């Protein structure tokens, strides 16, 4: 695991309400590296988040909205945040409901940059 990616995940999980953060291979839906709370199934989150990102990307393309830069799924029991990263990766965050999405997004963009190094 890249040290920069590991440090980026550590910064992400320090954001209040974040239950876990992962780098996921966008095409495969497999975990590249993760930092999760104990009761979070990283394999399932990675597979489903990558699937969601692919479908949102398809919808954005059909709608002529261009490339997706950030996706937020706000559900009653939690929030899923996804942003693309270089090298065919996604940064995925699983968080409590009503998370500070702005702060989280900032850290996710930093994390995505870490994947480039």
């Amino acid at each position: 695991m890249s040290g920069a990616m590991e440090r980026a995940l550590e910064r992400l999980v320090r954001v209040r309400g974040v239950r876990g953060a992962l780098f996921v291979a966008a095409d495969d839906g497999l975990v590249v590296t993760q930092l999760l709370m104990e009761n979070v199934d990283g394999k399932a989150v990675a597979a489903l988040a990558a699937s969601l990102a692919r479908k949102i990307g398809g919808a954005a393309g059909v709608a002529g909205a261009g490339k997706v830069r950030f996706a937020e799924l706000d559900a009653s029991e939690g929030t899923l945040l996804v942003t693309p990263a270089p090298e065919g990766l996604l940064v995925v965050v699983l968080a409590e409901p009503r998370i500070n999405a702005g702060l989280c997004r900032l850290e996710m963009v930093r994390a995505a940059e870490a994947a480039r190094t």
Partner: protein
Amino acid sequence: MSTTVVEQWTAEPLEHYVAQASARIVVVMTPAGQVLAQHGFGRAVDLMGVAALGAAIMASAGALADLVGERTFAALFHAGQRHGIHLAGCSTARGALVVLTVFGRDTSIGLVELFFGEFAAARRAAAPADSARGPILAENFEAELGASLATLFGR
């Protein structure tokens, strides 16, 4: 594409798996290559070839695992340009089974792996425990293969 099964208890878990994982082709077979259920095939001859090759790959991987000191490899994954292949074993009360899944770019290996785990658990739960399958003997193999294909393709 239709799903056909030799033993009815395999139908529901298989249909659920195909839908969840967006699989194009699924073959459930014994380690000897005898097909118990399939999805995605229209012709017996294609199914026979795929089942034989899948069983052979699993057998080779098992032998390789043995050589490197592993009990077995849980799953094998081959990625292609348009399709991927996931090949894995699972145990049930009816004996060990091999499942070959072919999937396209509309899904991913992560999703296939995820739903394969659920599929294997559903098969274990659904398998009738009263009659474990005996070893397939060489003298019975041809007849059992023919009977399976006749059931799967209605001939």
